[in-house]
């Protein structure tokens, strides 16, 4: 059980999640991608959405690995107010944090040499909800949800 309350007073409890995946090395990215993909499939998400979700996990876990060295990817199934099923992906790390979150979420901004800077903005575009909490020197949390479509 990991309880976190230190990033902008935001609290994460990994016990609330169906799936908790440690990201420590590059190889963990592929594992996380695969695990969350299977989880989404099992919960009846369409193939198009499964592809999006896998891509989101790929982006968020790479950011953890690249900028914070280690952290967690968590996933859970939720029920929205309107009875909809949602899949939530949460990425959490205790890395350096992001100075200007606005800028980081703007497509095209990157602090990497070989990168497009389209990761976070891409995730926001793929998912139905997107929230990022980051504090310099403390870490970063990204919380994002996608609705299960029935058509």
């Amino acid at each position, binding site marked *: 059980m990991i309880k976190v309350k230190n990033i902008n007073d935001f609290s994460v409890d990994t016990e609330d999640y169906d799936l908790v995946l440690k990201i420590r090395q*590059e190889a963990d*990215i592929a594992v996380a991608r695969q695990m969350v993909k299977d989880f989404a499939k099992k919960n009846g998400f369409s193939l198009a959405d499964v*592809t*999006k979700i*896998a891509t989101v996990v*790929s982006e968020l876990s790479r950011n953890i690995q690249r900028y914070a060295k280690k952290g967690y990817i968590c996933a859970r199934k939720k029920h929205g107010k309107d009875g909809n099923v949602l899949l939530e992906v949460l990425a959490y790390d205790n890395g350096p944090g992001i100075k200007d979150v606005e800028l980081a979420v703007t*497509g095209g901004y990157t602090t990497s040499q070989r990168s*497009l800077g389209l990761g976070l903005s891409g995730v926001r575009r793929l998912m139905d909800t997107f929230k990022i909490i980051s504090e310099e020197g403390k870490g970063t949390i990204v919380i994002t949800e996608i609705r299960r479509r029935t058509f």
Partner: protein
Amino acid sequence: MSDKVVPIIKLYDYLIVPIQIELDDITVEKLQMQLLNEISAKKARGVILDVSMVDVIDSYISYVLSETAAMAKAMGCHTVICKIQPNVALTLAQMGIKLENVYTANSLESALEILNQLD
């Protein structure tokens, strides 16, 4: 063999590369190395990447593929990405990612046609 991550088939002046592995960061970087080595060794004028088996292409993989294509171009070799899965194409489009420096085709036949016309 350890640094060869994909089989490469030479046909005419072209290389056909079926990518039938998961593209993680390490693999995609090895793929880049292997491709550039073979383009140079075989003096290839075109390379066809068959990505029909690849079910995740994210921003970094896109970046490396485009970068590889740019390097190939500098070596006189065109790149065609062939049989991208519709869901993968959709995801890339929605993220605002465009694969740069590459042609795209729906079949190996049309990929070969594109390369023939460029020659």
